[in-house]
């Protein structure tokens, strides 16, 4: 089993519903976020191109955050989901530095926090909160090992990319382009 997400940049309008839904679902404190929206512009008026995409932890297969964690708080959970055990975390921030995606933040309660792919929902067969709320339906989640999963189907018929592949972390968030 290998959980992954595909996000359609052609459909995302950058409304940030994924961000606020994650906050209310996961009780993320105000001023912090586990996911965010990026807008990339190219060209000069009026020959312009723009990509909008929702970003979060890439739940990498080769995760520098897990490797550098001195206490084992950062770990691989079922399906390759990267999680943090708050009680084991000493808040040293090594993982924050190691992440090429800037996906982690220091929670005011003293541990490092990040996207969990809403494992508590996924375990019940539901989509992560961001996926299930997205008004443009631009996110697909599921098991890459299952050819019938939403994410497998989305990746089958479209061109896609991952972010910062040169970092060698084997990210598991894919952007349909």
């Amino acid at each position, binding site marked *: 089993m290998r959980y992954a997400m595909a996000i359609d940049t052609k459909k995302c309008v950058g409304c940030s*519903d994924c961000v606020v839904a994650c906050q209310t679902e996961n009780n993320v404190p105000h001023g912090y*976020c586990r996911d*965010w929206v990026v*807008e990339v*512009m190219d060209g000069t008026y009026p020959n312009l191109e723009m990509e909008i995409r929702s970003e979060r932890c890439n739940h990498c297969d080769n995760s520098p955050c897990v490797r550098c964690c001195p206490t084992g708080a950062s770990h691989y959970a079922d399906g390759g989901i990267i999680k943090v055990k708050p009680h084991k975390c000493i808040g040293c921030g090594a993982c924050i530095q190691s992440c090429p995606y800037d996906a982690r933040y220091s929670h005011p309660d003293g541990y490092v926090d990040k996207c969990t792919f809403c494992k508590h929902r996924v375990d019940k067969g539901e989509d992560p909160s961001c996926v299930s709320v997205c*008004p*443009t339906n631009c996110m697909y989640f599921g098991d890459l090992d299952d050819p019938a999963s939403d994410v497998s189907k989305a990746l089958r018929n479209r061109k896609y990319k991952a972010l910062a592949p040169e970092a060698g972390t084997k990210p598991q968030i894919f952007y349909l382009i």
Partner: protein
Amino acid sequence: MKTRRDFIKISALGTAGAAVATSAFSTVKAGSLFDWGEKTPLDDSEFIRTATYCEVCFWKCAGWTYSTSKGDIVKILGNEDDPHCNGRLCPRGTGGVGMFTDKDRLRNPLIRVRKEDGKSVFRDASWDEALDLIAKKFKEIAGKHGPESIALFNHGSSGKHFGHLLKAFGSSNITAPSYAQCRGPREVGFVATYGAGVGSPEPTDIRDTECMVLIGSHLGENMHNGQVQEMSEAIDKGATIITVDPRYSTAASKSKFWLPIKPSTDLALLLAWIHVIIYEELYDKEYVKKYTYGFDKLKKHVKNMTPEWAYGITTIKPDIIRKTAREMGDASPAVIVHPGRHVTWYGDDTQRSRAIAILNGLLGSWGRRGGFYLKESIKIPKYPTPKYPKPKWSWKDALDGKYPLAGLSVANGFIDATIPSEENKYQLHAWIVSGTNLPLTMPDKDTLNEAMNALDFMVVVDTMPMEITGYADVVLPECTYLERYDDIRSAPHREPNIALRSPAVKPKYDSKPAWWMAKELGNKLGLEKYFPWNDFEEVISYQLEELGTSLDEMKVIGVKKFDREYGGLYMGDGEDFEFNTNTGKIELFSTELAALGFDPMPKYTEHPEPPSGYYRLIYGRAPMHTFSRTANNQNLVDLMGENNLWVNPKVANIWELTNGQEVWLENQDGAVSKFPIKVRITERIRWDSIYMVHGFGHSNRKLSNAFGKGVNDSELITTVMVDPIMGGTGMRGNFVTFLTEDPGKEIES
């Protein structure tokens, strides 16, 4: 390597930022559910789920409020059966929790007291005292000037309750800025063409369209949920989107064609499209023959309005005008030239909307799959109350023949009618203002201020200390939509449907629902017979039972769909269809406009251009905010806490502006912004315009998140081009320049 640090983040949340606030939901922290030290949010089944529909914007999506037994609201999710949202709320709906938790909410009634130095302050009051004062003042004013001199400005669900109260009291002077400051012209333009307005939600069949044309409408940034969802579906299916906008909007970035038009020239483009569609015979011939009136007149009218003619006006190249017209023709009738929503731009907006309506008529999209579907709604039975008394006069009389086609009341007309003068025979003396923050809504602030100063009495009802509360004599704190019942939502759609709003928790503080305020006030005004129920649950229960359902059932399902009664979603092939116009046809030539002396077919007129050193002020929406009402909502402030000033790099270069620099703005009439705004240098805006999101620049210090954040566009809209047909306030004819030094404006509140 590009990382997100290189980009402009739309959600400007600093991962390394300081803690802004602790969680508002500490009581639901799942400390007891630690699994190997992993924090796991509670399961949805541990919460109480209550049916509601959203009030953060007018789309009114139905959803579920999740709350704890302790009375905390945790989250709000969409109702999957609701055609407005299909189970997916937008960021504002999801973030609606922030309206409930907002620490700056109005907590108890307030009464203005004037101090000896002439300044006035508010003091806390009991409900009884506040309502007694209102009843006393209303009786006094009605005794002197008649009950008709009391008016209501409203937006949203709570206004309905005060509308009922006012009608019972003898006034039909009820208005909402959502008409003459927003969608009014398109309603009138479509009524003049099809005999029917567009309404809300717009019956655009986007999910099945092959071509959608957006004229300055920035779907995706205006987060009209169901429409945005369908636009996404249409993109999936490969539909062509054509966006006309001087700004590279989000929709433009999703479009096959983006036409970066010179602002204020849209009507010339529309006429050139009509020209191409007629002279290249791209129109739906059978449809035009069977259903329309005035084709030959229109053909003659647009004879010289060629793409070459329009090129000189719009800066859009003739071949692009032809190519896009052919795209529409190819897709016909599965094509939507979108009527837009906020269309009060240049004062000839009814005529521009007419051109849009005409174009749709030629393409045969009205009543057709992929065009405009034939909507249906459920009529909610009225709870039996006595007939309202007949007012001696209404806003129509006050307009005195001005704006003859205003189908609904004109808010700016109410403001004019409040200012005393010899000609003003129908003066308004008191206002109730419910759910609309007039100082950040209405253009021409001087006239608004003059009217408010002339008023004898003003009651403001709101959940938040919006700027308008500062002008009130009495402020009534309303509870949020999550804490109250309201009318059953019935909105036209493909399938008629209703939705329930019911309270998830008790009202916080000493806030109350509007129905309660109206009823109590009614009792004090001797209007008990109009409120023959104990609470609103009784009214809804009655109505739901009349509709063949019940409150108990609706509490479980939230949304109920009904079968269509009046035929199919689309017109049948060759079906006889009578339109509600003078000719019974789609009027390409408007007999009604002709009879009133207006242009029966739209003509392009030139509009003022920015003076040297000034830039056209264009404003719009962001998907995470609604007007000015959400600017203090912490959940949404997290996503966007202030507006920025979009400036083209060429312009920034001339003015030596840098990204993030704070500037103040001064308009052509010398109006200066109260606060500075941060510059965002971007290729996404034309060099002759600047852009900002509407709804920021709040000046009430009691709004601790919103105060002083960004600029309020309304205070820079002092030149208004009024639509002579229906009174809409054209607001896109204002031009601003940059002040790089603090002009030292005093902040009054």
